C-alpha cells in the first residue's frame, strides 16, 4: 500500500498531502505520524493541505486525531494552506477543528512551531488555546 511521505525538518515533521486520499491512506498517515513523532522526538508537526481540493469529515477527523495524539506526545500540530473554498465547506459541514492550530503557509506554520520552542523570548499566541 502506498503511503504519504513524512519529512524530518529540524525538530519538526513535514507532511504534504498532494493526493485525493482514500480513507485507508488517511488512517495509515495517522499511524505513521504517531510513530515518527516518538522516533524523532519531534516537537512539531506541519501538515500542508494546500493541494487538497476537499476535506470531508473523515479527513477532518484525521487532522483532529493527529493534533490530539501529538499533543499527548508533546508536539504541536499546525495545519497549513487550507483553501478558502475548503474552509467555507468545512465550517458548513460543522467541523471547526478547534483542537488544531492553523497557519496560512508552511513558513508561517514553521514560525508558529519555533515560537513555541523559544517560549522564553516572546509573548506568543499559544496561551489562547
Amino acid at each position, binding site marked *: 500500500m502506498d503511503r504519504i511521505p513524512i519529512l524530518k525538518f529540524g525538530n519538526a515533521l513535514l507532511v504534504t498531502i498532494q493526493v485525493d486520499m482514500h480513507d485507508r491512506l488517511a488512517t495509515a498517515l495517522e499511524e505513521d505520524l504517531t510513530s515518527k513523532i516518538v522516533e524523532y522526538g519531534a516537537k512539531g508537526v506541519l501538515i500542508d493541505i494546500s493541494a487538497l481540493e476537499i476535506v470531508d469529515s473523515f479527513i477532518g477527523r484525521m487532522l483532529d486525531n493527529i493534533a490530539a495524539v501529538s499533543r499527548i506526545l508533546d508536539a504541536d500540530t499546525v*495545519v497549513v494552506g487550507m483553501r478558502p473554498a475548503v*474552509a467555507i465547506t468545512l465550517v458548513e459541514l460543522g467541523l471547526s477543528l478547534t483542537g488544531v492550530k*492553523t497557519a*496560512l503557509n508552511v513558513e508561517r506554520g514553521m514560525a508558529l512551531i519555533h515560537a513555541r520552542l523559544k517560549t522564553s523570548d516572546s509573548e506568543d499566541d499559544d496561551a489562547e488555546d
Partner: protein
Amino acid sequence: MAANVGTVAELVGSSEQLILPEWIDLQKKAGSLNTGRITENELVSQSREFLHLLRDGLAKGGSDASNPAYGPAKQLLADVSRSRALQGFSPSETATFVFSLKQPLFNTLNRNSTLSPAQAAELTWSVTLLLDELGLFTLEVFQKSREEVIVRQQREIAELSTPVVKLWDGILALPLIGTLDSQRTQVVMENLLQTIVDSEAAIAIIDITGVPTVDTLTAQHLLKTVAAARLMGADCIVSGIRPQIAQTMVHLGVELNVVSKATLADALAVALERTGRAVTKQKRQAASEQTKTPAEKGQ
C-alpha cells in the same frame, strides 16, 4: 395616383425639406433639447437618418412595422432609445422622437392635391398605426435598457459594498455597510478569505459599524466567516458592534464567540500589537514646533 403606402414613401422623399424642419421644431417644442443632454446637431442628424430609413421601410415594407424592411429604421430607434435611456431621458421624452413625426407627415399628406380626402384619411390611418407601433418599440427598448442599467448597478453595489482594504502589512479590514443577507454574506465571505490568501494577512478586522441590525442569521454568517478564516490560519476581530445590536444579540441568545472591539481603531491597535508592532507618539522638538510632523511619522 393609387393610394398605397408607397405613395407616402414618395412624399416623404420629395417633401423632406418641409417635413424635417417641422418635425425638429416640434421636438424642440416638446423640450427634447431643454435638458442639454443632446445637441441640436445630433437631433437633426438622428431625425434626418430616421426619415430616410422610414422612407425605405415604407417603400418596401408597406405599413407593417414587423416587416424586415423596417429593420434598419428599428435599429436606429433602438440605438437612439438606448442612448437616451442611459443619458437619463424620461420615457415620454424618448417616445416623443417618434410620435412627434405624426403631425408633419399628416400635414404633408393633406397638402398633396393629387390625393382625395378619402385616400388621405386612409393613408393617415396607416401611418398612425405604423408610427404607434414604432413608438411602442422605442419604449420597449428604453425599458430594457433601463433594466440593464439597474442590473449593472446592483452588481456594482454588491461589489462596492464589500471592499477588503489593507490597513497594514498583514492586517486587513472589511468595513461592512448595510444589511447582510445570505447571498451577500457569501460574496463577502469568499472575497475576504481569498484576499487573506492573496495578501497573506494574519489578521482580518470585520467592522460592522455600518450594519443596522444583526439577527440570528447574520450573527451565524459572521461566526462562520470567522471560523473559516481561522481554519485558513488567520484571526478575525469584529469591531463596531453598536449598543443596540449588542443588546439584541444577547436577547436573541446569540453568542458572538470572537474577539470583539468597540471601534475599528481599537481593533487595529490589537492587531498591531499581535503582529509585534507598537504605535508611539512622537515627542515634539521644542525648536521645530510647527514643522511637518505627520510627514515624518514613518521615521
